[in-house]
Each structure stands twice: as structure tokens, then as C-alpha cells.
């Protein structure tokens, strides 16, 4: 893997001095679970292995979130890739008090919005109107158990506007606290609460039969 350190761009193209280039430590496969801050610091210093660990750790939730927002597997894969490329370039802008997971999901949401805008400009395909069957491969048992619920939830989520859906997913599916959702969505706290509340009401209206029927 070529070692590349991407410095903060400056008008004068100052190369990164060799002393700033650390030898990547072997983080993967060692059983070591580095704390997130430590991992981030290493990734910021240009250790490719650290960024790989960040990808391994967070790409499932980013991919899941994007799959729910875009409802198209190829587009969600593409957007996951774009999210991590942007995250890599902006690593230095992550504040000390920001959680990496929420920050990544915030970038993912921006990427998905850009994709949705492109789809709106170019009417083919329209994923909101013609949702494709998710190309997921659950076990037969899982498919049997959750098929009905998935379909209902899928339909209920489609009814929600994309912003409202994103906020609800961040809260329920990804467990982000309201403050982090506000950062990821670029909203104030009250708006986050209102939108999630309204999303829940819409969802309940459609799911009430199923949820009340579950033990």
C-alpha cells in the first residue's frame, strides 16, 4: 500500500517533511482495539492502517444508513465510498468533542442529499417512486422472521421525507443522541426533536397494526 500523507493544502506547495511520516503500525489483525481518539490521531498523521480500521469499524453503519436513504444498493455503495474519501480529506476538521460515528453519518447524509438532487435533476431512475428490492442476503430464518415487518417498515419509511427519515434513522437505528443528530443534520435541537416526533407519528400510523400485534 503506498504511503501518502495528504497535508493541509496551502498556496505554497510545501512537502511534508519526512519526520512527520510515521511508519504505519500494524493495527489490524493484532487483536488490539485502539480507542477512537487514538485511532483518529493516527489517521490524521497519515497512517493508512488507522484509516482502514476506521473504515472497517464504521462502514457497516454508514452503508446501512445510505441504503436506507437512497434505497438503491449501487448508489449506496458509491455513496459509502464517497463518504470515506471525504472523511479522509477532512479528518483534520473533526473537532475534539465530536464523535466519529456521528460525524461520518453527517457526511453520509450530505453525500446522499447530493445524490438525491442528481436524481431529481435526472428523472431516471426515481428511487423514491420505484424502490428496488433490497439486495441484502439475510439468512432464510431471518428473512422468514422479519419479512413482513421489513416490508411494513420499508413502506412506512418511504412515506417520510428524506430529511425526516434521516433524522429518525439516526436516532432509532444508529442510536445517535439528539445533539449529534442536530450536528449531522445542520438543525437546531428543537427542530431535531420536532422532526423525529413527527416522523414517529407517521410511522406509528402505518405500523400500529403490526407493532400492537407483536408480543
Amino acid at each position, binding site marked *: 500500500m503506498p504511503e501518502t500523507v495528504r497535508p493541509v*493544502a496551502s498556496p505554497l506547495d510545501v512537502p511534508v517533511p519526512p519526520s512527520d511520516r510515521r511508519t504505519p503500525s500494524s493495527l489490524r489483525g493484532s487483536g488490539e482495539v485502539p480507542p477512537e481518539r487514538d485511532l483518529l490521531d493516527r489517521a490524521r498523521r497519515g497512517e*493508512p492502517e488507522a*484509516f482502514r480500521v476506521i473504515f472497517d469499524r464504521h462502514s*457497516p453503519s454508514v452503508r446501512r444508513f445510505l441504503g436506507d436513504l437512497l434505497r438503491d444498493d449501487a448508489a449506496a*455503495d458509491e455513496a459509502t465510498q464517497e463518504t470515506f474519501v471525504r472523511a479522509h*480529506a477532512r479528518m483534520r476538521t473533526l473537532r475534539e468533542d465530536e464523535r466519529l460515528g456521528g460525524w461520518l453519518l453527517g457526511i453520509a447524509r450530505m453525500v446522499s442529499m447530493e445524490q438525491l438532487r442528481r436524481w431529481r435533476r435526472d428523472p431516471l431512475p426515481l428511487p423514491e417512486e420505484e424502490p428496488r428490492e433490497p439486495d441484502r442476503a439475510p439468512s432464510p430464518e431471518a428473512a422468514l422472521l422479519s419479512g413482513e415487518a421489513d416490508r411494513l417498515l420499508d413502506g412506512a419509511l418511504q412515506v417520510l421525507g428524506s430529511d425526516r427519515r434521516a433524522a429518525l*434513522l439516526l436516532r432509532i437505528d444508529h442510536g445517535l443522541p439528539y445533539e449529534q443528530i442536530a450536528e449531522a443534520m445542520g438543525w437546531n435541537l428543537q427542530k431535531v426533536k420536532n422532526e423525529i416526533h413527527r416522523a414517529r407519528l407517521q410511522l406509528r400510523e402505518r405500523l400500529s397494526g403490526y407493532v400492537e400485534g407483536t408480543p
Partner: protein
Amino acid sequence: MTGHPTFEELEAAALGEEPRPEVLAHAGRCAECARELAWLHAEAQLFRRRPQPPVRPEIWERVEERVHAPVPISRARRWRPFLGAAVAVAAAAALAVVVRPPRGPQDEQGDAAVSDEPVAQTDAKAQQALDRAAGDYRSALGVLEQEYARGRGRLDQRTQKRWDDSFARARSLIDASAQARNDPDERLRLLDGSAVMVRSLRHAVEDSEEVAR
């Protein structure tokens, strides 16, 4: 707990976020809160038991390729037309200066009232073209400075200083070119320097995620 727990407390309990024992205790004896808690719990289960889509290995491969690409894909910027126009005008000015016919000995003898006219016209055109080039470089620099000002706070102090110095140098070159109005060759040289600086700044702004964010 005297009253009902807040919605957020119930939600936190349903999502498994360190539920306060008194919230659960209250829900144990309050039918209304118990029902809300059950709803929230069922809702969370419904979301969370959905299958996890796979992360295909190709995604990482592409990420790796792209983060190590030496030149980022350039983004369209609204100040591009300024720079394009400035370069075109500067090129026209350069041409006008280069094709200006050399003054012959008769010009120095003061009998060139007729033959001096095309030269004067050429000089005026060249001056106008250089004026426009300088104006366009100034406009382009102004737009770049605005872009930079928006992201300046995200850069560290050392980088800020490098950026500030570069902007100051670009501006001083353009100013110096205005001072050299009577020397078209010097003016052209200074404008060439300005073009290089503006181009360098444009690339830097394009490449900087901190500024372009």
C-alpha cells in the same frame, strides 16, 4: 419520581441507553407510560432487527485508490470565468506589445506624425488589455479571498500565515503592475507573475478541504 417521566427518558429506556431505574419503576405501575415504553421498544426492535447490508470489498479498494490519488478532481468554481477572461486578455495584451513595430530613427527626428499613429493606437490597445487583465486578476483574487475567509478559521496558524502571505504577494504584484503603466514590458512581466500567483491560489483553494468545505 413524582410525575410521569419525559418522553426522552422513556425513549432512552427503550433504546437501552442507561435507563434510570425510577423510569422503569414508574412504567411498571403507570399504564400510559408502560404503553408508550412498549411502543418505543417495539419500534426500536423493528428497526434494529433488519438485516445488515454487506459492505463490498470493492468499496474499500476504491476508497484506497482515491485517497491516494495525487491530484484531486477539480471542482467547478464560480470564479473560473474571471480567471479565464484574465488569461485571455493578458494573452491579447502580450500579443499587442510583441507585435508593436519598433520605432525607427525617423520617429526620433520628430517627423513621424503620420507613422506614429498606428503605434499610439497599438499602445493604447495594449494598455487597455493590460488594464482589463489587471482588473480581472483583481476580481479573481477577491473571490478567492472570500472563499479563503470562510475557511480560514479551520486552518492552523502556520497555514493561515502562509495563505495570508500568498494573498498579500499576489495583491502587491497586481498593484505593482498598475504602477508600471509607462513600461508595458515590465507591466506584462508583473501581470505574468500575478497570473502564476492567482493560479497557484486557485489550486490551493480547490485542493483544500478546509477552505472548500
